[in-house]
């Protein structure tokens, strides 16, 4: 079976983001961009399933501007067989992304779609669930363990109460949590090989997906700053300060 993997490009997780003073956005010019960390985990899981013989082909998918090619080459160097680039200059909200994935599913007929549980830029945590709803298939979100056998996925999910295990018939959508795996590093020879791998470019407009912007962002602000704290010299002083505040 084929596995489709969502592979979003985001501002690198180590970058301390700055809000523009006029409230129109965050500064992204000249800022380091990387694969969304959860998507690296999704790709790693797909590659492991291929190495186990469960999957035959792993396809990375990204939606975004023309310069995503280098980003997709990273996914190919990590081990994906090929890439699909849906080209649009506009920012895409989760429901639109889910509709794009549904079109690709109709074309590619994958047995499994693996996405990250959230992108670290919009922190929405929606696309996988929305895709599963539109596709009318099972979802297994926040996965920390995946076993596939007999056309079913047994997935351990990280939920607030602990670990929940569910069973989902394939095809299905899985979204990855941090502890699912440790993504591999890209090796130099693989970067060379990735140059020969195919990237299928599709114009967003040709998919017949209605861009869906029910949500308008009207303002960006920096979070409220906490007032400067004080350093205490020892345990007794700390306890006294907390008692004074009525916290102990």
């Amino acid at each position, binding site marked *: 079976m084929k596995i489709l993997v969502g592979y979003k490009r985001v501002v690198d*997780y180590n970058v301390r983001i700055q809000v523009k003073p006029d409230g129109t956005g965050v500064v992204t010019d000249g800022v380091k961009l990387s694969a969304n960390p959860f998507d690296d985990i999704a790709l790693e899981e797909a590659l492991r399933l291929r190495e186990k013989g469960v999957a035959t082909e792993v396809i990375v998918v990204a939606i975004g501007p023309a310069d995503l090619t280098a980003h997709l080459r990273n996914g190919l160097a990590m081990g994906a067989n090929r890439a699909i680039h849906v080209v649009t200059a506009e920012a895409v909200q989760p429901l639109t992304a889910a509709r794009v994935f549904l079109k690709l599913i109709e074309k590619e007929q994958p047995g499994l779609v693996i996405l990250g549980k959230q992108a670290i830029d919009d922190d929405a945590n929606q696309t996988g669930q929305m895709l599963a709803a539109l596709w009318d298939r099972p979802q297994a979100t926040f996965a920390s363990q995946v076993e596939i056998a007999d056309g079913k996925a047994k997935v351990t999910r990280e939920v607030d109460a602990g670990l929940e295990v569910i069973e989902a*018939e394939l095809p299905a959508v899985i979204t990855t949590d941090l502890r699912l795996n440790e993504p591999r590093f890209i090796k130099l020879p693989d970067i060379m090989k990735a140059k020969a791998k195919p990237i299928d470019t599709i114009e967003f407009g040709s998919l017949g997906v209605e861009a869906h912007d*029910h949500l308008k962002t009207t303002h960006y602000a920096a979070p409220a700053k906490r007032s400067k704290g004080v350093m205490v010299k020892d*345990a007794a002083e700390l306890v006294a300060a907390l008692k004074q505040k009525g916290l102990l």
Partner: protein
Amino acid sequence: MSKILVIAEHLGGKLNSSTARAVSAAAAVKAEAIDVLVLSDAPDAIAAEAAKIDGVSRVLTVARPENAHPLAAVLAPQIAKAAAGYSHLFVPSTTFGKDVAPRVAALLGVAQVSDVMSVEAAHTFKRPIYAGNAIITVEADANHPVVATIRSASWAAAGNGADSAPIEALTIDAALPTHTRFVELKQGSSDRPDLQSASKVVSGGRGVGSKENFDIIYKFADRIGAAVGASRAAVDAGYVPSEMQVGQTGKIIAPELYMAIGISGAIQHLTGIKDAGTIVAINKDGEAPIFEIADLGLVGDLFKLIPELEQAL
């Protein structure tokens, strides 16, 4: 006028406090009605708890054996049907809500507002992005129902009055899928206060050093009646189970007192505690980023300082 449906979160026959927090957000919309929907195999006791929450107009129950476990694929079609006639659908932004709400939104063909931290107007909300390093104001289209998840840490739980709202059983005619099945829930057993609703939280990080050493954190937390949390580093190192993780990808909490012990304070961790009342940091590295947001900081070896703290109590 707005009519809001709040989806109740519950576990083991008990209502989760995240539900009363979502009711607080609904009250901020100044709705003409706030109804709570309880989906369960046995909703009666849960509904009775929900009916006591201040501001709730009605509690609606859907009792079906399929609702014994919160499977998004099973619950979403029922919630989407029950949402008819409501202007807003509010769901707690817990793993339960994050799992089910987007599925409902997609069935309704609408966008979702994730992690609402404030209500500016009936269709205008504030929410965090980039791990809480920016706060955006978003406007939802007034011609469509609003599906939103409510960030628990931003809202106090609505009170419990003497009055009880009426409870009505609802029959929902929805075909439910059988392609997704519950197998089991492995719960971390703990007598300590619940991490997400506790007024005091003590968290340990990589600096604690080992699973065995974490006992010193548990002991101290028990002494002051606090819940216990952890940084991602401590979870990844196997010191504690993952449901204890506090941060962007773990739990977002807002206790009155948060004590970070042996935690350096990566951006992703700070996201989870920014709204805490008082933050205390104990770390041997005086340059650790945690001290930038701590109200009270103490530099030193935690294995020496914690016994001293216990002594001083």
